């Protein structure tokens, strides 16, 4: 095998290998999307985050606008502190409401943002004032059964 032919093959190999990596990065992964751009971080305190995980999407009106960056437990307030990393091109008013929602009945959990009417916009490090916790299915079922039981026992009285 002549050295030039060999070089040609190796060059071809490196190019399609790189092409595969780029395909994985942009077409399969999210490198082309919001990731990698400028972001700002806001915090929100929740009574219960349910099954929310780091890197879960943050959506507003169904559009992904950021990701969950970090989840901590605050030992003073006994609440969960969730840091959201939001795309800098999306600005939200200061009185935006953050809710932990579930996609579908059993799907993954994400943070939904509902913009308020404040003039001032959220900045890095700001805290979201109004939050709604995750709906925990076990609690919901427990509540439902309790109500049913109460209904059932009421006529007997």
């Amino acid at each position: 095998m002549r050295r030039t032919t060999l070089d040609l093959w190796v060059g071809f190999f490196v190019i399609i290998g790189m092409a595969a990596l780029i395909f994985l990065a942009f077409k399969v992964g999210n490198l082309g999307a919001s990731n990698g751009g400028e972001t700002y971080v806001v915090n929100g305190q929740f009574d219960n985050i349910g099954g929310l995980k780091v890197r879960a999407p943050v959506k507003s009106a169904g559009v992904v606008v950021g990701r969950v960056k970090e989840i901590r437990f605050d030992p003073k307030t006994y609440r969960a502190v969730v840091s959201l990393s939001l795309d800098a091109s999306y600005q939200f008013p200061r009185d935006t409401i953050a809710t932990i929602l579930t996609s579908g009945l059993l799907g993954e959990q994400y943070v939904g943002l509902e913009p308020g009417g404040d003039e001032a916009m959220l900045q890095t490090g700001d805290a979201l004032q109004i939050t709604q916790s995750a709906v925990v299915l076990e609690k919901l079922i427990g509540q439902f059964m309790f109500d049913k039981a109460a209904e059932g026992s009421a006529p007997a009285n």
Partner: protein
Amino acid sequence: MNGLLNFIRRLGATAVEGVWRIGFAARFFVLLLRHSGQSLTRIHLTVREIYFSGVLSLLIIMVSGLFVGMVLGLQGYETLQRYGSGDALGVLVSLSLTRELGPVVAGLLFASRAGLAVTAEIGLMKTTEQLDAMDMMAVNPIARVVAPRFWGGVISMPLLAALFSAMGVLGGWLIGVVFIGVDNGAFWSQMQAAVDFRFDIMNGVIKSFVFGATVALIAVFEGYDCTPTAEGLSRAITRTVVTSALAILALDFVLTSLMFRGQS
């Protein structure tokens, strides 16, 4: 009683030899790194080895990737549609490939295609005294023969694993979208929403890099260390494949638990 003692004695001997070999391999690795300069300054030596371990593995890697992706598409859809989430097929296929199957299966194929060939080549050069002859010509065989083959493997493997994953995703797409009829848009958009570049894809690339270096080191070491007889050579080749496979699976467990532990 005697049999038990013998068994314990054999166990001890095996353990001592194992530890000795690991130490020897570590020294060999240091020596290899110290003599790697030539692989960079005379790049055509390494390019030649990329040809043998990379280009010649292209076909098997791409075809296997395609089939693995197609099987994932078929099996994954069967399971997912029971829960009414057939649209998530893209997520299943791409995550299993980029995180695990791509690096691991490509690594196993790489070990049995390229690793085996490297062991056989170096082992045969040793058996026919070519390495001794080189040494007597004042050319260091580790710098001239071993190091380029090692670096060729290290460079080839991540590219092969990426190709494997890409072909697999295409295979899954072929089955899922073209044959079964999952929505094309949902397939790709759900995949892109779930697969993170840094977290999933880069970790997969890091894995494939580690596996490549491991397999390449095992292959050159077993070749260089083989007993210079026909039987010693065949045993060295067998050991390359077996040790590489075990090392890949064990390292995969370690890396997975380091990279993905406690996260989604």
